[in-house]
């Protein structure tokens, strides 16, 4: 566990302890499992966002992807009666495809990630609303989805499945990012694309790979979210979720300049965001203040991190200078 992750964990524990003291309900099983469910739902696509941020990119389109993939899934299952395994595959393939398109637009055509995914945000949202004539589709009419519903929104040993899903995704992506060749390439490309290319790395493929993985994780999240809300209203489903994901990634130590971040950090970032959300509810703070609390805490976190980094590097910098002077 790095210093950033440790600091984040301490912060989470501190906030949780304060909240629990003010309202012991915070630690009730119902509340904890409710939080675990949300952490699972938000964590998965935040990890996808983190991968893209590590390449030096950003994905603004995930919230709109949820709306479009959600209505496609419900239309296939509820209106057309398509068997759910096929519908699931279609949704995952679509997510993957959107990621691929983003990746290719960024690497092949040299567009900026912000622009590409901002257009994605607008296009997918518009497409979702047009697709359904702006009306809400509900899960209620679909048949034969019980098995999938249990998988996506059920609980085992009292723990929501979405949380298990996050654990599995985090472990797999964690190994990929921190142990695999592809992961090393991601960091190298995010840090210094040119040096990576000069080392024989197919930098375009690596960056595209991050977007594809991000798209796939967004597809999985879309399915879980559909079963969480059991209906999709295309104009509001997934609104602002890309910002939660970016916030979680940044809180978790991903630098928007690229080349920095960890899966554990992103998961902890997600946990912190959900604890804050929960704290607003459980302490009876007006829920309209929700975003303001979150923004305030992120800002304070960023400031504290900056100050700590400065204090840490102040003696280190002098030592480094001396060492460099001595080594040269």
């Amino acid at each position, binding site marked *: 566990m790095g210093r950033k992750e440790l600091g984040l964990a301490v912060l989470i524990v501190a906030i949780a302890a304060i909240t629990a003291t003010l309202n012991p309900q915070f630690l009730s099983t119902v509340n904890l499992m409710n939080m675990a469910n949300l952490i699972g739902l938000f964590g998965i696509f935040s990890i996808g966002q983190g991968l893209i941020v590590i390449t030096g990119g950003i994905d603004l389109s995930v919230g709109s992807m949820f709306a479009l993939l959600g209505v496609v899934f419900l239309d296939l299952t509820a209106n057309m009666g398509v068997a759910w395994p096929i519908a699931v595959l279609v949704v995952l393939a679509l997510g993957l495809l959107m990621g691929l398109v983003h990746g290719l637009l960024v690497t092949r055509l040299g567009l900026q990630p912000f622009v590409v995914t901002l257009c994605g945000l607008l296009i997918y949202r518009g497409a979702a609303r047009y697709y359904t004539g702006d009306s809400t589709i509900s899960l209620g009419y679909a048949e034969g989805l019980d098995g999938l519903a249990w998988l996506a929104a059920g609980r085992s040993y009292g723990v929501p499945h979405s949380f298990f899903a996050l654990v599995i995704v985090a472990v797999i992506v964690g*190994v990929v990012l921190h*142990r*695999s*060749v*592809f*992961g*090393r*390439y991601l*960091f*190298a490309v995010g*840090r*210094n694309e*040119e*040096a*990576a*290319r*000069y*080392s*024989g*790395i*197919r930098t375009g493929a690596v960056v595209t790979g991050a977007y594809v993985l991000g798209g796939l994780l967004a597809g999985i999240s879309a399915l879980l979210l559909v079963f969480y809300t059991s209906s999709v209203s295309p104009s509001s489903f997934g609104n602002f979720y890309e910002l939660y994901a970016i916030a979680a990634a940044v809180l978790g130590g991903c630098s928007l300049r690229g*080349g920095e971040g960890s899966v554990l950090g992103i998961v902890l970032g997600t946990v912190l965001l959900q604890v804050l959300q929960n704290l607003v509810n459980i302490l009876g703070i007006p829920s309209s203040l929700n975003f303001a609390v979150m923004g305030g805490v992120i800002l304070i976190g960023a400031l504290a991190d900056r100050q700590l980094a400065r204090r840490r590097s102040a003696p280190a910098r*002098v*030592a*480094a*200078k*001396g*060492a*460099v*002077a*001595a*080594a*040269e």
Partner: protein
Amino acid sequence: MLLELEGIGKSYPGVRALDDVSLHLAAGEVLGLVGENGAGKSTLMKVLGGVVRPDAGRIRLHGRDFPQLSVAEAGAQGIAFVHQELSVFDNLDVAANVLMGREPVWGGPLRLVDRRAARAAVAPLLARLGADFGPEAPVATLSIAQRQMVEIARALSMQARIIILDEPTSSLTLSETDRLLATIAALREAGTGIIYISHRLGEITTCADRVTCLRDGRVVGHLARGEINHATMTRLMIGRDLKSLYTPPAAVPREGGGLRIEGLVTEAFPDRSIDLALRPGEILGLAGLVGAGRTSLARALFGVEPALAGRISLGGEELRIGSPREAIAQGIYLVPEDRKRSGLVLDMSIAENVSLPDLDGHARAGLVSGGSEARAAEAQRQSLRIRAPGVAVRAGTLSGGNQQKVVLGKWLAMRPRALIFDEPTRGVDVGAKGEIYALMRGLADRGVAVLMISSDMEEVIGVSDRVAVMHEGRIAGTLARHEVNEPNILRLATGQRPEQHMATVEAV
């Protein structure tokens, strides 16, 4: 006396960066400051610039004593820097750069920039420097030499009385260097005091009135005009005599095989083609002026900018090189000119940098084996004598010479067949230079074809077995070892024929 430093000392934990350093500079004088990297030149200049506060000593400027300077005081006292790494704004025009922070304004509280006044103020400065561009020229369109001129104009516009030039010619062509030296002579005539820091002892010999030499943070010698020569300065800098650079190959390079380039057309010169043969086991120096197409050739060979036409073959086998990945697969490696940008990921460790091009070789089932890469990197650290406490150290914390060795380590850990060095010792100190030359020779002796692009004449003459000279996108001629000398290289580089041995110049 413009400037007197007395007993300046500066310590960092564990390191004495400056120890009792004294020097002085008079108006209308050029002081050459030499010393290996890490000798304390940069720290001393930071003291003068007000960036670093000395622990001991006294700075006397125009007869006024300062225990230490702030950045603002340094500026106010007329000290100006022309940096090694240029600090111009290339998105603005020349006038804006020269007057940055001191723009003439009009419109009262609106403080609009008075462009006409700015240009009128900058034009005479440029004229004084003999610049061939105007104040309205966008800096993005200027060459590095011209940008340097912009920095000097900026120093003049601040009424600088002391100008410090730090490695000003490391990116300049020969004629640009001559012009810079002429500019310096003109500034000296006008009474400006100049501190000239350079590794290129030839330039110091040409322009300096006196030389101060630093070693390990101490002044090891002051030389008067008559005592300035290569041998004396080198001996003072490294504390011993430098033995001759040139090491002949252990075995005669084999004919045939090697890297063959036929009719190669690069993007930089679409109407010129290049033919060149590089034998296994030799070091072929590639000389020429900056912009003659040498780097384009290297980029084409390495697949960064694939060639438009022509054939490249290695060991008799024709290659298709469309990307660095394909070049690397064939054993053609490049040690690039800008190692911080293209050679290394500075934020990664030595081990991670060394293993980067061959990561699959250090992985099983797609997972990297940290032990395997650490062992490979450690082997390189020891054989290349990279000065670092371990291979987990960030590459960015190393000195220039050691960074260059890490770049080399990347390739030596693999199987090189042809190795291209683009300016291999830029920003590398004298001691490390010798080590890098020895490594190049060792590679050649193992049968690797080595192509060395260099603008450093001493290096080209001292290291190469043969020298090919480029002029405007084509090979102007190739010189055998016994024909390699400065006049011959210069003639070819400027498009003339070499004076003697005309017949023996290989027609390629």
